[in-house]
């Protein structure tokens, strides 16, 4: 296990370095880029590698830079916006799992029946509907028309307490992100459960005379959850991507909204810093997912690389 974790950890560090190189390169190689303007006096004549290493060195020490446009440090902007995004994505992901696991399992067990087709249609619809359309439709029918059940905009009060307690304004953003994520998870859970259903141990359990309910819960569900752990780690970039749109639509000043605004006003330090944080989270997510997978399934860690 230790050997596996250290090998995977080393891989993650390499991947992270490539990410920083890609992001920094894209921003600073652009013709007449604002990158050179924002990086400080003389940086335009600084060799690319030197500029990159300077930025990386500062970032490693926790200095993400300063936004001259907003006159705040990137770190303080992050501290103000990250909690909102964490609440939004955290709650939505948990809700999506709670919905997607039973839906996918039901589809697999009742494969080919009307229930399977209806649920499949609904999940394809969730997948194919852009977050913006879904959110707008929810706003139109639940927030704009009287009796204004929910707010059309996310909580605007500063501080994290406002986000957690303002159920009326958080409902629609959370619903939107949840439904979009269900579209991804449920389709995956269905194929994972179908795999488990075709395994020998399911056959064996049935042959031993185990009841159908026990077979489903103890064998199929348990084993199809293992790949879902990996899915959770790997879909982090997608969930964050969804959060950008939901925050944009509902005017929630979280990480995604700040990143969008930074891109619109060519605010390179903010764009760089925020992208770096998202990438670190995504790489950590996939690292933890792989380690979790290895922990749950010994065949992974004993396999030869």
């Amino acid at each position, binding site marked *: 296990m230790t050997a596996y974790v250290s090998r995977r950890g080393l*891989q993650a560090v390499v*991947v*992270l370095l*490539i*990410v920083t190189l*890609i992001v920094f390169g*894209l*921003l600073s190689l*652009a013709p007449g880029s604002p990158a050179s303007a924002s990086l400080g006096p003389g940086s335009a004549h600084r060799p690319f590698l030197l500029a990159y290493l300077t930025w990386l060195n500062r970032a490693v020490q926790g200095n993400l830079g300063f936004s001259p446009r907003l006159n705040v440090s990137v770190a303080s902007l992050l501290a103000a916006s990250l909690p909102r995004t964490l609440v939004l994505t955290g709650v939505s992901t948990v809700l999506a799992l709670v919905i997607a696991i039973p839906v996918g399992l039901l589809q697999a067990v009742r494969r080919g029946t009307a229930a399977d087709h209806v649920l499949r249609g609904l999940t394809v619809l969730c*997948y*194919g*509907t*852009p977050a*913006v*359309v879904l959110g*707008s*439709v929810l*706003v*139109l029918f639940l927030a*704009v028309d009287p009796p204004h059940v929910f707010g*059309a905009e996310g909580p605007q009060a500063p501080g994290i307490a406002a986000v957690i307690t303002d159920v009326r304004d958080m409902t629609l953003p959370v619903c939107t992100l949840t439904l979009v994520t269900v579209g*991804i998870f449920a*389709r*995956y859970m269905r*194929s994972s459960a179908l*795999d488990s259903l*075709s*395994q020998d141990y399911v056959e064996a359990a049935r042959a031993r005379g185990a009841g159908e309910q026990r077979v489903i819960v103890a064998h199929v569900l348990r*084993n199809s959850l*293992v*790949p879902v752990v990996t*899915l959770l780690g*790997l*879909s982090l*970039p997608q969930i*964050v*991507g969804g959060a*950008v*749109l939901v925050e*944009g*639509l509902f005017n929630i000043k979280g990480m995604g909204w700040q*990143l*969008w605004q930074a*891109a*619109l006003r*060519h605010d390179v330090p903010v*764009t760089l810093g*925020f*992208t770096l944080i*998202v*990438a670190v989270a*995504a*790489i950590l997510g*996939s690292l933890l997912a792989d380690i979790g*997978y290895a922990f749950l399934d010994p*065949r*992974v860690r004993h*396999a*030869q*690389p």
Partner: protein
Amino acid sequence: MTASQAVPDPVVGQAQLPAGGAQAEDVATGAAASARAGRGRHAGPVAVQPSGAELRAAAAGRLRRFLAVLRAHPLATVGGLVIVAVALFCYTGPALYHTDQVHVFLSQMNLSPRAGHPLGTDSDGQDELGRLMKGGQLALLIGAASGGLAVLLGSMWGAVAGYAGGAVDAVMMRIVDAGVAIPAIILLLLLTSVYRPSATLLIVVIAGTSWLTTARLVRAEALTLRTREYVQAARVMGGGSLRAILRHIAPNAMGTIVVNATFQIANAILLLATLSWLGLGVQFPSVDWGDMLSAATQGIDNGYWWQIVSPGAAIVTIVVAFVLLGDGLRDGLAGDE
């Protein structure tokens, strides 16, 4: 895909997991891929140079199988027909239904659906139905072009990595891992904020963020294909690596690639709409469905539902059609073992 198949190499296991956008479906594609790897088109006499007639026959065979799959999977057929219908609507529609999409008509602003404006008008007084046609042309063009480009790039990258193996493979796949770690939308925000958006740039940029998942899929397939006897035989007889990749690996991975292409196009249309909505799409008076949505959500408090429902329904229709087509093709190609 049994758990044990997915598991031995964690990297391969990862490659078969969904990593972005449309790739949730590709889990099962990976399974189909590993199953299909057992059957090679060139499993016969590899040394014989296939004649033109044989190649034509093989192509005709593939086309027949493709049509048979469509017949056996009605939902895929529906998806295909819807795609054709939407394309006809967007490209031939404007010839039958004339609208002025350049001028602003202040007297016609925000009209609800009525005679003369079956889908209402937008905040510039332009007809929504005509706008839907014009916007669809761009969505289909950019979607198909960037989806195709992504598949081409990803297939070549994955085939080379999987075929080469070793250090080359490790380096190439770490680059893919790095790309996947950055959410596509954020990478797109980054790129379009630096470079000025045009249709060509959007095609390149969307393809540049979506080829990664194709690369993972095709690499997983190339890894199993390269150990097949006919590939080994071709190499023993002095065939070069390029030839092995183009003549043996690529054609046998074609099923996976075609299925992936449908999901890539769906994904590209979604990404384009998203980018346009964020204000980073094509410039006015060019228009796509995302721009229409963007204009609509700005005035959402007024309750002009038709401005959201029309482009929204158009996007959902075309994306679901591509997903249905891909699902059907995947099931069909996996099922003919």
